[in-house]
C-alpha cells in the first residue's frame, strides 16, 4: 500500500517510506495522557499542513480499573496528505501503555491485521507474575499473528528525566512518533509549549525534554521511518473538536444566553462556553434540570435574548413539553442535541444518530420545527450561526443534531472570519404601531412580527393555548386550524429558501447513498472507494432533515438503487421474523420513503462507534453485487 510519492524536503531523512496516510492509535489507562499525546501529534501534523482527524477513545466508566480491556483510553489520529473527514477504518500503528488496553483495541477489531505495535515493555519484569505472564502472552500472540511488535522501554527511559514516569510517558511517545513520521521537531516543541501553556515553564521544559528523549530513542533504536507529504497551509486554520466549535458558534451567533443541565456528551460544549461566554457578556446558566433549562431559555428568548439549550438524549426527551410551547407561542429557540447511544441512559459516551425521528416528531400534537444535522467540525460552528438566524427569522424552534463522535473529534478548518451579520440586530424596543397584532400571520409564509416585552403598545398575553392573532385564547374551531396552518406554513416558507440537494460523486448510476450528520466523511469515502472500482455511485448528505431540500426525489430517480446509511438501528429482512411488513427502517429512511415513495433500502449499525468507511464500503459492495 505504502509507496514513495516524491522526494523528501531538504534536511529530511530520505530513507523514510512515503505514505498517503496512516492511522495511529495511542492507548493507555485513563489518566496516563494518551489523549494529550494523540492530540499533540495531530496538532503538529496539522501545522505542517497534513489533513488530520482525531477520535477520542473514551472508556465508558469514570474510573475503570487499571490495565483493563474496557478501560482503554486514548486517541486515534488519522494523518494524511490531503484533507480527511473521518477517523478511517483501523490502525496502521498502535502505541499501547499496557497489553490490556491493547487487547481492548484488538478485540474491538480496531487494528489492521499485521499492523505495527509499539508496547511499553516494563510489564514483562513486573513483580506480579500474573501481570508479567499476561504481557508475554499477548505479545507472543501478536507476534505469532504477524503483527510487527516493537517493545519500548518507555518508563525506563522516562525515569531518566522525571520522577513519576506515568506523567511523562505521553510526551516521550510523542517524540517517538514525531521521529517515526518525520515531523518537524521544532514545531513539536512549540506544540508542547502550547499544550502546557497554562502551567508555565516548570511543566513545559521537562515535557520538551521527554519529547526530545523519545525522538532520540527512535532515532537510535527504531528502524521505522515514514513520511506523509503535506502541503503547508496558506490560510490560517483552527483545530478544535466539535463541541468547542459549538461553543464558538454560540459566541459568534449573537446569542447571549445558554441554559443547560450537565449531560454527557453535550456538557463539554457548555464547559467551554462557561469559560468564554462571560468574556463577551454572555451567560451560561446551569439549571436544576433540563426542563428548567429549556424554560429558562424560552424565557430569555421571549424577552428578546435569543437563547440556546444544549443537551443529549435523556435531556432532549425531557425538553419535549417545553419545545412544544416554543413552537406554539412562536418563540425562537435553538436546541443542540449531541446525540449518544440510546434508548434510555444507553451508552452515554458512545456515538449514535438515533434521535432524528424524535426530533422531527417529538412533542405531542403538531409541533413543526426545523431540524438540521451537522456533518463535520466546521459545520458544528456554522450550523449554530445558521440556527440562530433561522430561529429568529421564523420565530421557530431549531434543533441542531450532532453526536458523540463529532463532540470529541478534531479536524482543522479555515479560520472563520467574524462577521457582524452573524449577530441579530439589538432588540427592538420601539412602540408597536396602532392596530398591529402579536400574531399577524402572513397568509403565504405564516410569518408574524414578534412583540418583545418593553415595546410600548405591544402588551399582550402569550399563551400555549390555542390562540388567535391577538394572542387571545381561541375557542373558535377555525382559529385553531388557522394557527396550526400558519405554524406549518413557516416550514414551507423556509423550505423555499433551501438549495437543491447536491449529489457528490456520480450524478446518476447504480447506487445513491443518502446520509445525514456525522457520517458524511465516512460515506463519501466509501463511495469514492467503490467508484474507484468502476461502480457508478454517488452520495447525498442532507443538512436539513425538516424541512428537506428540493430535488431529492429527482436525484434519487437517477440511480438504480438508493440506500440510507445511518448510525442508528434498523431491522433486516430475513433476520429472524423480519419481513417487509414489519421491518423497522433507519431514521432518515423512514422519512425519505414517506416523502419520495422510492424504495429506499437502509443499513444502520448501533455499535456505539462512528461508522467506518470500510464497513460502509462492504455494505455498498454487497448492495452493488
Amino acid at each position, binding site marked *: 500500500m505504502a509507496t514513495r510519492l516524491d522526494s523528501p524536503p531538504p534536511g529530511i531523512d530520505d530513507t523514510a517510506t512515503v505514505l498517503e496516510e496512516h492511522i495511529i492509535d495511542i492507548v493507555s489507562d485513563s489518566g496516563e495522557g494518551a489523549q494529550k499525546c494523540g492530540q499533540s501529534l495531530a496538532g503538529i501534523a496539522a501545522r505542517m499542513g497534513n489533513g488530520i482527524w482525531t477520535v477520542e477513545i473514551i472508556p465508558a466508566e469514570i474510573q475503570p480499573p487499571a490495565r483493563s480491556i474496557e478501560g482503554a483510553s486514548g486517541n486515534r489520529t488519522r494523518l494524511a496528505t490531503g484533507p480527511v473527514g473521518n477517523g478511517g477504518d483501523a490502525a496502521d500503528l498502535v502505541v499501547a501503555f499496557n497489553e490490556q488496553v491493547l487487547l481492548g483495541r484488538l478485540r474491538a477489531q480496531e487494528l489492521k491485521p499485521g499492523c505495527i505495535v509499539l508496547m511499553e515493555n516494563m510489564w514483562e519484569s513486573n513483580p506480579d507474575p500474573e501481570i508479567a505472564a499476561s504481557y508475554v502472552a499477548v505479545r507472543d500472540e501478536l507476534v505469532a499473528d504477524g503483527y510487527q511488535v516493537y517493545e519500548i522501554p518507555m518508563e525506563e527511559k522516562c525515569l531518566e528525566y522525571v520522577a513519576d514516569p506515568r506523567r511523562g510517558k505521553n510526551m516521550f511517545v510523542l517524540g517517538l512518533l514525531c521521529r517515526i513520521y518525520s515531523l518537524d521537531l521544532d514545531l513539536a516543541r512549540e506544540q508542547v509549549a502550547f499544550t502546557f501553556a497554562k502551567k508555565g515553564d516548570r511543566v513545559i521544559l521537562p515535557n520538551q525534554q521527554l519529547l526530545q528523549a523519545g525522538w532520540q530513542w527512535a532515532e537510535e533504536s527504531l528502524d521505522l521511518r515514514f513520511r506523509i507529504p503535506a502541503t503547508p497551509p496558506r490560510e490560517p486554520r483552527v483545530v478544535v473538536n466539535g463541541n468547542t466549535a459549538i461553543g464558538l458558534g454560540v459566541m459568534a451567533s449573537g446569542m447571549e444566553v445558554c441554559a443547560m443541565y450537565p449531560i454527557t456528551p453535550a456538557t463539554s460544549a457548555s464547559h467551554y462556553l462557561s469559560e468564554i461566554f462571560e468574556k463577551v457578556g454572555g*451567560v451560561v446558566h446551569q439549571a436544576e434540570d433540563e426542563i428548567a433549562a429549556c424554560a429558562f431559555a424560552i424565557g430569555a428568548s421571549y*424577552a428578546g435574548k435569543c437563547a440556546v439549550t444544549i443537551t443529549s438524549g435523556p435531556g432532549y426527551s425531557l425538553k419535549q413539553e417545553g419545545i412544544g410551547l416554543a413552537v406554539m407561542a412562536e418563540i425562537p429557540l435553538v436546541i443542540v442535541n449531541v446525540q449518544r447511544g440510546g434508548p434510555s441512559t444507553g451508552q452515554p459516551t458512545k456515538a449514535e444518530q438515533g434521535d432524528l425521528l424524535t426530533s422531527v416528531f417529538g412533542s405531542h400534537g403538531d409541533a413543526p420545527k426545523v431540524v438540521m444535522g451537522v456533518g463535520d467540525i466546521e459545520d458544528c460552528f456554522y450550523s449554530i450561526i445558521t440556527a440562530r438566524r433561522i430561529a429568529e427569522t421564523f420565530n421557530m424552534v431549531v434543533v441542531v443534531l450532532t453526536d458523540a463522535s463529532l463532540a470529541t473529534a478534531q479536524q482543522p478548518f479555515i479560520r472563520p472570519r467574524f462577521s457582524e451579520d452573524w449577530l441579530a440586530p439589538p432588540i427592538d424596543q420601539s412602540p408597536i404601531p396602532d392596530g398591529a397584532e402579536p400574531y399577524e400571520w402572513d397568509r403565504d409564509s405564516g410569518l408574524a412580527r414578534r412583540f418583545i416585552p418593553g415595546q410600548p403598545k405591544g402588551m399582550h398575553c402569550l399563551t400555549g393555548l390555542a390562540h388567535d392573532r391577538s394572542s387571545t385564547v381561541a375557542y373558535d374551531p377555525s382559529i385553531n386550524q388557522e394557527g396550526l396552518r400558519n405554524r406549518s406554513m413557516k416550514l414551507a416558507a423556509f423550505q423555499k429558501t433551501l438549495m437543491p440537494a447536491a449529489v457528490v460523486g456520480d450524478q446518476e448510476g447504480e447506487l445513491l447513498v443518502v446520509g445525514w450528520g456525522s457520517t458524511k466523511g465516512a460515506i463519501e469515502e466509501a463511495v469514492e472507494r467503490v467508484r474507484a472500482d468502476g461502480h457508478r455511485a454517488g452520495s447525498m448528505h442532507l443538512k436539513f432533515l425538516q424541512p428537506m431540500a428540493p430535488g431529492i426525489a429527482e436525484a434519487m430517480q437517477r440511480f438504480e438503487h438508493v440506500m440510507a446509511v445511518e448510525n442508528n438501528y434498523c431491522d433486516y429482512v430475513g433476520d429472524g421474523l423480519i419481513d417487509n411488513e414489519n421491518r423497522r427502517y433507519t431514521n432518515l429512511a423512514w422519512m425519505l420513503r414517506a416523502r419520495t415513495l422510492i424504495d429506499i433500502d437502509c443499513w444502520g449499525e448501533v455499535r456505539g462507534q462512528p461508522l467506518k468507511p470500510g464497513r460502509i464500503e462492504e455494505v455498498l459492495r454487497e448492495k452493488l453485487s
Partner: protein
Amino acid sequence: MALTATDCVLLSDDERSTIEDYEGGVPRWCTGCGDNAILTSLQRLCRDEQLPQEKVVFVSGIGCSGRFPHYMNTYGFHGLHGRALPVAEGIKIRRPDLHVFVNTGDGDCCSIGTAHWIHALRYNMDMTVVMHDNRTYGLTKHQASPTSPLGLKSNTTPYGADLNPLDPLSVTLGVTNASFVAQAVDWIPELLHQIVSLAFHHKGFSFIRVLQRCPEYLPAFFDPWVQDPARVLLLSHQDGIQPAPSLSRTYRNQEEHDPLDLLRAKDIAAGADAIPVGILYRNPEIPRYEELRKPDRLYTPDAIAKGFEAELDRFTIWPEQEEKEHAAT
C-alpha cells in the same frame, strides 16, 4: 416613526396611569373567587408604582391562577404547568429593566413545580411571586393538591385525602437564600396589598402565599377563619405590615415579629392554630443571581468580535508567514 426609549418615558410621564390602564380582558373566574382580590391588589400596585405597562411581565403556569396574566394589560406569559418560575428567571436574567411577577397555584408551585420553586428561592432573582393557594386543583375540577387538607374529598380522593397538607411556608423557610416569605389571605385586602407592596419593593425573590378562596370546589372551607378573626395571627413590625387601627380592632391576635428572625419564623409557620398573616421573613442582604451573573462588559458586536478572535487565536494554526506577523502584533 420609531421612538427612543427616552421618548417613551417622557411620553408616559405626561399622564398618570390609572387602574383601568392595567386592566386586561374581563376576568373569567367564578363569582367570589379569591383570585379577583389578588388581581385588584396587583393592578393597584402597578398604578401606585406607576409602572410602565410595557415594562411589566406577568408570568404564570396553568390553573385558574394561570389565567391571571390574561387579565392584566401588560405583557403576559401564560406558559406550562409548573414551569412559570424558570421562564420568569430566563426573562429576568438579561432584562433587569422589566418588572417580573409570577402567578402560580398550589398545584403548579408545590406539586409539579416543586423543583423550580425550591431552586428559584435559591437563585433569589428579583421578582414578585404570588402563590394562589386555594388548596385544590381548580382548573381541572377538583383534585387534591399538596396543600389540600387531610380528609378532603376530591375527585382523586373520593374517600378523603390521606396525607397531611404540605406547609409551603415551612418548606420555603428551609431553603437557603430564601429572602422574602410572606402570607396573605384574600379576604383582608388591605393587608394583602401591604404585603404585595412590600414584596414588590424587596430586591430579590419575594414569595407570597395567598390563602385564596375557591367557592366552586371548597365553598365553606375558609369560613372558620374568615368568620373568626381570632384565628388569624397578624405579624406586625416596622419592617413588616402595619395594620390600620380599624383593622387592629378586628384582628386582635397580633404578634410583633421581626422579619429577620428566621428561627421564630419557622416556629410561627409550623404552628397549627392560627393563620399567620404578614411578613415571616425578609433579608435584603442575600445576593441576587441576576446581579451575580451580570455581565461585566457590554454585549456589543465589538466585544463579541474581540472575544471571538481571541478565542480563535488559541486554536489557530497560522501559515508560516502570517504566524510571524501575528506574533508581532
